[in-house]
């Protein structure tokens, strides 16, 4: 009973009403907006972490793909280089063969040309010798010849020959 003297019914009711008003205000101005902000931030952080993880997975996948491609490209490049070397070697061989054939052809032509030239020169020389012989014979016939004259004639002939 002593304890009950500490109580005031009016104050009790007023305090209950005051607390309910505070509860309403706090719900309106603190709990709803701040719990929402905290939840939004938590969700945002979680989604950003998830997107970072997804991006990491994507990068790992791309990297694996890139490495596989790189390995494939290297093998392909080696094969291509090998093929190019082989082709080059064949081309060089072909060029050498053609050059050899050309050279032989030119050589043959040159030989033929030389032969023709020699034959022509021989012909010309022959003609000239004949002419000279005819000239000498004509001179011998026209002049009375001594041993000295013969010598002189021959020497003249030889000198002329040398000149020519």
């Amino acid at each position, binding site marked *: 009973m002593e*304890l009950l003297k*500490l*109580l*005031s019914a009016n*104050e*009790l*009711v*007023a*305090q*209950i009403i*005051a*607390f*309910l*008003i*505070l*509860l309403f*205000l*706090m*719900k309106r*101005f*603190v*709990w*709803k*907006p*701040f*719990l929402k*902000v*905290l939840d*939004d*931030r938590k969700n*945002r952080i979680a989604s950003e972490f998830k997107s970072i993880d997804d991006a990491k997975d994507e990068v790992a996948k791309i990297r694996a793909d890139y490495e596989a491609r790189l390995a494939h490209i290297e093998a392909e490049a080696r094969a291509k280089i090998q093929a190019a070397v082989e082709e080059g070697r064949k081309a060089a061989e072909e060029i050498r063969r053609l050059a050899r054939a050309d050279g032989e052809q030119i050589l043959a032509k040159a030989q033929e040309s030389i032969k023709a030239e020699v034959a022509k020169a021989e012909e010309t020389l022959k003609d000239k010798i004949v002419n000279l012989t005819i000239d000498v014979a004509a001179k011998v016939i026209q002049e009375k010849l001594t041993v000295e004259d013969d010598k002189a004639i021959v020497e003249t002939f030889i000198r002329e020959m040398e000149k020519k």
Partner: protein
Amino acid sequence: MELPNIITILANVFKGSRFAAYITAWENFVFSLIIIAVIALVSCAASRKAAMIPARLQNFFELFVSGVDDFVCGIMGPNGRKYVPFIGTLFIYILCMNLSGLIPLMKSPSTSWSTTLALAICVFFYVQYVGFKELGFWGYLDHALGRPRGIVAFSVFIPLMMLLLHVVSELVRPISLSLRLRSNIWGDDMLLAVFAGFGLKGLPLLLFNSLMAIVVSVVQTLVFCLLTTIYFTIVLTHEETHA
């Protein structure tokens, strides 16, 4: 014996008038209203500029809100989120009331049993409401009748005794909850008033007791809120067990 506050000073100024009698009668309620007004204004100011990147005041409120959320959900699990506003409001209100006794010319309204009992009655009715809402009438009765059941004695006698025990324990809760808080804060304020009466000689004791009063205020607030959370947990745990 208590330290002078704005109401006692005003009552002395207007001694003998109806105004003095009125404000003396409503002394604790006036301080409660002042505290409610301050909390509401600060909350309003904090929530007005709420943004994704928090400023100083918002930071403080977010810390408080997330702290209460963790406290309640840590005990009750994810279902506890529904009761965070109620328990959090109790926490901030009781803490401010307890600490207001340390501010010059103020008084702790929680030194009045009417104030603390009002809060305990709110807790009592809310817990009963949650019990009825979550379990339904028959479920709540089943919860009140307790265990074990089965043979005749267990089917009638023990459940009736358990029901009686349940009713008594439920009715005693608000009384124990409110008296514990009121008496601790009242005791602290009495000690402060006594040490203040010593003058300069009592200054070290006054300072020490002020620090102790801060600790006691926080601890008593936590005890009140923890017990409230446990009352909710008991109701909801029972519901989950039956489910």
